């Protein structure tokens, strides 16, 4: 599904990703763990098409060159990024935003757009599963939401859009234990044969709830070790500094 080969990324001549390679197959859950500044967020930004990076190397998504796709086209083709810091958008109603987003993706894929009632039924069901207060959906997008609510809103969007490749950028940071469990349940319920996940995190904690197939350790823009879930536990014990 996703093949990253020798990806290098720079901002203002500062090297952030250094010969980074990763291969994700359909249905797999990969976790990338790394300390602050190791390039985790840059990776998720580049995958979803944020501008401002000098990039070399190759990213293939479903065997196509990802760099040829604009940000919104990547979303149309099933890439979803749950933001580390979801943005507050004043004046934009959450429901309207969700509907605009869902219908833009459906339209791009030649599917019928949902009308107001179909949409509300869908969003109600998904919100309920995530214990997301329905009343918040009528508020301005993320404005006045707590950190946890913003993260839940990301997972809500993910569950509505039902992407093929979900990238979770430190979704666990800022969540209390209950919220963490709800978010993890949300992710687990989306795990299917064809849906893949890339989970970016500092801590092993989230991986107690979402069991990854592979764990990669990212330090200084490079994966220095890959393994199974046990790698996360080892990492937690030793810390990043002593890990080599």
């Amino acid at each position, binding site marked *: 599904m996703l093949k990253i080969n020798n990806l290098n990324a720079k901002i203002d001549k500062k090297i952030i990703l250094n010969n980074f390679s990763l291969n994700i197959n359909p249905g797999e859950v990969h976790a990338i763990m790394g300390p602050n500044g190791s390039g985790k967020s840059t990776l998720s930004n580049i995958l979803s098409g944020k501008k401002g990076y000098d990039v070399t190397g190759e990213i293939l998504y479903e065997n196509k060159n990802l760099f040829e796709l604009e940000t*919104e086209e990547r*979303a149309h083709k099933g890439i979803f990024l749950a933001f580390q810091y979801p943005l507050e958008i004043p*004046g934009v109603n959450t429901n309207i935003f969700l509907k605009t987003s869902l219908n833009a993706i459906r339209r791009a894929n030649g599917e019928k757009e949902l009308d107001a009632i179909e949409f509300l039924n869908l969003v109600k069901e998904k919100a309920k599963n995530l214990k997301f207060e329905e009343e918040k959906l009528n508020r301005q997008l993320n404005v006045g939401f707590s950190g946890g609510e913003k993260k839940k809103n990301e997972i809500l969007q993910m569950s509505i859009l039902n992407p093929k490749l979900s990238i979770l950028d430190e979704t666990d940071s800022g969540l209390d234990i209950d919220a963490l469990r709800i978010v993890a349940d949300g992710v687990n319920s989306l795990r299917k044969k064809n849906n893949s996940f890339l989970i970016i995190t500092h801590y092993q904690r989230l991986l107690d709830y979402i069991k990854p197939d592979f764990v990669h350790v990212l330090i200084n823009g490079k994966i220095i070790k890959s393994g199974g879930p046990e790698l996360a536990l080892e990492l937690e014990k030793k810390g990043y500094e002593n890990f080599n």
Partner: protein
Amino acid sequence: MREQLVTDFDKIISDSNFSKKDIELKRISLDKFIEDGFPTKKKEDWKFLDINRAIEKNIGELDFYNDYSFQNKIDTSYFVKGLEHNKIVFINGRIEKIDFKSEDSNKIEIIEESNLSNKFNNINSLINLNNAFANKNYKINVKENYSLKKPLIVYHLTSNKIYKKNINLRLDFKLESNSSLRLIDYFEDDSKDNFINIFYNFDLEKDSSLKNYKIDHKDNKNVKYSFNNIDQKENSISETFILSSGSSFFKNEVNCDLNGKYSSAFVNGIFKLEDFKNHEIKTNINHLTENTKSYQLIKSVLGEGSKAAYQGKISVNSIAQKTDGYQLSKCILLDKTSEFNAKPELEIYADDVKCSHGSASGSLNEDSIFYLMSRGINYEQAKELLINGFLLDVIEKITDSETKNLIKNTLGLKE
């Protein structure tokens, strides 16, 4: 220009049946206008929008004479649909229709005024021009304790029959005590290169309420000036909202005299401009007695070489204790070619007052656009969502829900 003015003026006088006294007053206004000419940048109040240059550059020689002997056909397709309303229809400056069908006829008095008052001499040269050339003056009296059931829409329609003309319109409104009026000015131009000069005077008696919404949305190449003078007695409320978008040049001026205790004035507006348009809102809020309140919020979205200016002045008289005055302007500049100027002025002579002002300009937040695009929304749509979101809070200030919906629809804001 002088000769043209004098010839055109004489033609108008011979066409009409103004009283001798009116003609005399009109001539004084004409002479004064001839002396001053159109306002230029040299005048502090006009430094952001030089109307003299706008006329010279975009129109050239203006014709001040309009033949009002022929009736224009009213094209009803211009009328606002889905909102029952009273109407005054101006076509090319000529009043074609006054219709208060929805109201109790003995509660509204329409007077064709002949006695000009010289109260409004020398406010500025454009008012002098208006006084000299306005064809007919109508005064609309809303009787005490009467609230109009439906809004009044004043249609400002122009057709391609007029070109390089100066049109002067004048309306007077008196709201007797405890009465209320919702007044929508709706501009639709199919003409170009004209200068349209509008002067409204409002007398708001005790406990009365005026809501005036101005909608200039359709693209056109006319130059416009509108002056609202609002005189407010005790406990009266005025709410003005200006959607400033369609014309090439438009300066809206609002002068509000808060003469009575507990009177309040709200002036809110939107500039939505592109294509080198140049618009301005200038307000003068005069707090003249104690316990009065004013609130102003102006939001702008500017692109493609357009310019907007907001000059907001709050004056607090030395006896006007407990004044509450507020103004804020915010602007999004869509590119480097557009420009926003804010000139807030507070002139305070009383000591127990609460007054504040603020202004901020910036560009659209790229991170917000990226966030929306990462959800499958394309760049144009993302931009539109952010712009509409930015404008929403000033639209929410419109207290009349029917008009609020009309303006939302006009701007293409979806529910």
